[in-house]
């Protein structure tokens, strides 16, 4: 029964923080919007700042929550796949791969004066994510050591980022200046159309991941046991790779590479719920990632307002210590 209580309290506090942060996020900023006004805007009664709330802050907040959730879930799936608690889309270089292909695509389109739609963005980003992922998979088939895998991932990330920087530097165009901002990671400038597309991608992925929680729980025990329990390992591994790539690709397409959420949020959820069971962890990670990103975005927007910090700097500030903590704990458990 104690377990059940922990479950209720955990999910309740996550939902409460999610709601609280959403309101706070609408409320705070260069223009202050009071909670009463937020309510009236949401109910469609209008207000002085209706446009700011409706077309700038609301989509941004929804996107932040969705993308944060997607990042955390992607991290959780990758950690399961590699049996490695500090795996994540950013650390393994998957976000950076997505960023690289995305930048190349954007430059190619923009230099011809063609506008780029959300779908193309996601496809390019997914292609890049898969590209990095195949490198990581190739390396993981050669080296079995956990730390080496992470180092290779970080290196792939650096290579992709370096190439992206070259490309952006030499592609001298007004539009491309914005690219530089995006390539650092940011939730700004998101439209309702973007929110629609990312929902259409992320929500199904979340549902599929949740439906896979049974084989994921088997896979957590190790491949040999999972197979004996009736899991089709090849199909399952492919599904896991696709899901985590789609999720991190969606995030990169709209907000650029965002660091450490994929590692920090699942870890915090594990500590909160004291379990690794996917049936709990999948919804928990999604909510936890949303809360984490909303908080970080709030700080990014308001800490040095009107200057906006890059979201990755804030997530790194909170997320990186968590990674160190996980490694230290692992060391102690001697695993």
């Amino acid at each position, binding site marked *: 029964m104690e377990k059940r209580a922990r479950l209720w309290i955990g999910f309740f506090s996550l939902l409460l923080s999610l709601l609280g942060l959403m309101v706070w996020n609408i409320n705070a900023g260069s223009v202050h919007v009071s909670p009463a006004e937020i309510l009236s805007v949401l109910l469609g009664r209008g207000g002085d700042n209706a446009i700011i709330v409706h077309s700038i802050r609301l989509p941004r907040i929804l996107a932040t929550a969705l993308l944060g959730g997607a990042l955390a879930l992607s991290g959780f799936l990758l950690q399961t796949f590699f*049996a490695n608690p500090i795996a994540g889309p950013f650390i393994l270089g998957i976000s950076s791969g997505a960023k690289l292909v995305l930048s190349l695509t954007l430059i190619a389109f923009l230099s011809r004066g063609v506008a780029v739609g959300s779908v193309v963005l996601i496809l390019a980003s997914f292609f890049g994510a898969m590209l990095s992922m195949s490198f990581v998979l190739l390396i993981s088939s050669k080296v079995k050591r956990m730390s080496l895998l992470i180092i290779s991932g970080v290196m792939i990330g650096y290579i992709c980022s370096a190439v992206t920087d070259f490309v952006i530097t030499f592609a001298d165009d007004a539009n491309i200046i914005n690219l530089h901002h995006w390539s650092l990671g940011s939730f700004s400038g998101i439209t309702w159309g973007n929110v629609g597309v990312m929902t259409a991608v992320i929500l199904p992925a979340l549902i599929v991941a949740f*439906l896979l*929680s*049974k084989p994921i*729980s*088997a896979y*957590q*025990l*190790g491949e*040999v*046991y999972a*197979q*004996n*329990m*009736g*899991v*089709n390992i090849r199909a399952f591994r492919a599904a896991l790779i696709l899901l985590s790539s789609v999720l991190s690709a969606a995030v990169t397409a709209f907000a650029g590479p965002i660091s450490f959420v994929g590692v920090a949020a699942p870890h915090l959820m*594990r500590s909160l719920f*004291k*379990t*690794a069971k996917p*049936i709990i962890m999948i919804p928990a990670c999604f909510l936890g990632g949303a809360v984490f990103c909303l908080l970080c975005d709030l700080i990014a927007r308001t800490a040095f307002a009107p200057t906006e910090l890059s979201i990755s700097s804030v997530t790194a500030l909170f997320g990186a210590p968590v990674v160190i903590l996980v490694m230290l704990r692992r060391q102690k*458990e001697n695993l």
Partner: protein
Amino acid sequence: MDTWYIHTEHMDVGYDGTPLIRDIEIGIRRGEILTLIGPNGSGKSTILKSMIRQLKLLGGVVVLDGQAMAAMREGEIAKKMAIVMTERLRAELMTGEDVVSTGRYPYTGRLGILTATDKQKVREAIALVHGEDFAHRPFAQISDGQRQRLLLARAVCQEPEIIVLDEPTSFLDVKHKLELLEILKTLVREKNVAILMSLHELDLAQKISDRVVCVADHSVDRCGTPEEIFQNQYIETLYGMDEGRYNALFGSLEMARVDGLPRVFVIGGGGSGIPVYRALQRRGVPFAAGVLAENDVDYLVAKALAVQTLSVPAFAPMNEAVMAEARALVCRCEHVVCCLTAFGELNQCNRLLRDEAAVRGKILPVRRLFDLWTGGGPA
């Protein structure tokens, strides 16, 4: 056709496409324990891993309950076959009970939620391995032996018809080794399960197996009942040991004999000599043993450890020829130890031998003898 529950036909096994063992033909019936024995690296685990589909077959087929396993779906196999392997099972933030309940996986619904029946089966399985006391603790924090028992419970609540175990007794102490094997025996008897496993402990393999398969030097060397397999000479060849090291009757092993001219003559019988033989072997002192009847328990050990063993046939009286040999040995040895305190009717020669040695001043009490060679090395 035999009534095999699982059998292999011309199975070739190995890693990365290179066959290690070819043309393996083994079969197990339900209600039977089949044990693989053989030296390290001979390929026991490779055979097991291939039979549970962890390794791809390099040739031939494995037939499980009448169907070729390669064509079966994972879910089908999971309801028939459970495994306990040497690979570490990762169990992050899981209690022992959580680990056991993963055995119910093939029976639960889409999301894997346990029903009351499932939970009951989990409790029964834990009770079977006497794991109630530690099942609630984190799996990562219990001892290796406790973990092994819960892994067996996990296999049991999977309700399989065959359980495959790779060296299941490796981490267990003597008591729990026996307990684990007794649980296997119970499963075989009560649930008509087939057991396929590999064991290192020859004595246990001899006692528990219905049939034994010997894997040696990349081939299946022999297959048969324990009575057929556990012959002194055969086991010694299988493991590449010197003659006399293995005793099939006890399933026991002796250390290497200390060679050289015998320095001590040990008069033993009825088990009284064995501790002295072993103590001298440890101290590196060559010795002779006598005069023993060939049905004496001391005789079996003396044959392995003594440089020279004087004996008479079972239940036969001592004869002059043996006495003459014994006297000669007593003369050549520096010391004589007599482990006997009573001498039966057929054993009067040994009393005579002791008395004669006493006259020569060669008799030493056992404790004095060990004082001469304290520690490890020879004096």
